[in-house]
């Protein structure tokens, strides 16, 4: 029998990277059903949103930081992009933490999940990590933040809305450099595309394995819903800025079931 790998954990039959270090005040969970998400914009829901986002940014920092040390032979210019991303993510963590404290929250107030770290940490090429972390997770975050800015503003919290808009501008650059470099890396070595395809398959497998059961509630009684039914509005304008091609944007829209609105230029401000 093989000894368990100290760098990995198993959740619902899928092998994932062991979590990065966290302070004891944080409760790290594996499933959506263990999270404390509330609907709406109550005070508690707002703090949980900020807390969850803050941990995601810590994860973004950890993933970006791991790359220069895991891939020392990567082109210097790409390592510079990742180093810059590290700085951006640290500013996001500080901003979100500052706002969380202003709203009466604290570190470790709610459970957190390191899903993105656990998945990307299993990928053994920089191209695969960029494809999953920057081009998929961060681009998804771009879609979500583009929408939630309006939620905060509608709730009368202009300060948080402005902060999120600033964070969104940084995230666009993280997605853009990944898209640019992935094209360059694939052009130089077409085998990169196979690595990326395998990474996307892994992500699909993990997402399916950890998906909630129909009708499942989270730890505070909020219906979770199927993640495939929770695809947010696609942030078409910012995806264009992030160097997605029109074909790629059409594909994202198709996957979102066309529930997304058309670009702002064609449909007015985002709802």
């Amino acid at each position, binding site marked *: 029998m093989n000894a368990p790998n100290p760098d990995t954990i198993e959740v619902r039959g899928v092998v994932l990277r062991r979590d990065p270090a966290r*302070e004891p005040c944080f409760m790290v969970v594996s499933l959506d059903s263990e999270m404390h998400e509330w609907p709406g914009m109550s005070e508690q829901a707002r703090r949980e949103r900020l807390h969850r986002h803050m941990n995601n940014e810590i994860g973004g920092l*950890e993933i970006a*930081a*791991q790359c220069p*040390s895991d891939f020392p032979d990567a082109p210097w210019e790409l390592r510079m992009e990742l*180093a810059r991303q590290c700085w951006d993510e*640290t500013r996001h963590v500080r901003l979100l933490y500052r706002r969380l404290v202003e709203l009466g929250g604290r570190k470790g107030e709610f459970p957190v999940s390191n899903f993105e770290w656990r998945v990307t940490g299993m990928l053994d090429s920089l191209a695969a990590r960029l494809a999953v972390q920057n081009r998929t997770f961060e681009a998804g975050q771009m879609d979500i933040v583009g929408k939630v800015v309006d939620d905060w503003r509608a709730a009368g919290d202009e300060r948080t809305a402005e902060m999120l808009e600033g964070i969104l501008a940084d995230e666009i650059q993280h997605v853009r450099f990944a898209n640019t470099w992935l094209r360059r890396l694939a052009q130089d070595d077409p085998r990169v595309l196979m690595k990326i395809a395998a990474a996307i398959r892994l992500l699909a497998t993990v997402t399916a394995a950890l998906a909630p059961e129909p009708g499942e509630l989270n730890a505070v009684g909020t219906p979770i819903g199927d993640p495939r039914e929770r695809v947010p509005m696609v942030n078409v304008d910012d995806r264009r800025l992030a160097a997605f091609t029109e074909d790629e944007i059409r594909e994202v829209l198709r996957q979102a079931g066309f529930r997304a609105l058309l670009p702002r230029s064609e449909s007015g401000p985002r709802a």
Partner: protein
Amino acid sequence: MGMSVRARAAAIATFRFVMVRIMEMLARWVPSTPEMEVKVLFGEHIWEAAQAADALGHRAFELRSPLHFTLPAADGYQNVLDGLAGTSGTAERLRGFYDVLLPGLERHFRRYLEATDGLLDAPSVRVVEQILQRSTRMRDAYLALLREIPRLAEVDPAWHEEIARAEAAQLELIRVPPPGEASTPP
């Protein structure tokens, strides 16, 4: 008498080696350090180190070397770097990097500024001065964090004394080549 172009290129390339190593060390520390505030500090300074390495790499090119030319530091200095990179405690990482390694590195940079011709080598001087400013900014951020959370830097005094002594013993950062070995770019 200042330094030759070859000697200056070798110094700049060695400084670059050290800044890249620092960038990689901080990058490795981010996921393995539990405290959020320290992760954020290290994360910010990855970028400081990367920019320093980048500026040095461009300056090396101006000194008739390949772009981003890099030369390994002297063995003794590399041992100090390796020893610090291998620490796992937050306090040891903080004290070792901000209280020992950075001030020591500043000393080597200042020696370079004293040795080189400030007019002939003005572009290098600017790069090195900017790195010294970065170093001050990094140490200021560390000191601000300690004012906020003093317990973060509580280490065994004997450990601190040992690493400080090891660093101070490295009088030469730049490798002295054995006879016949080129110390400068091809």
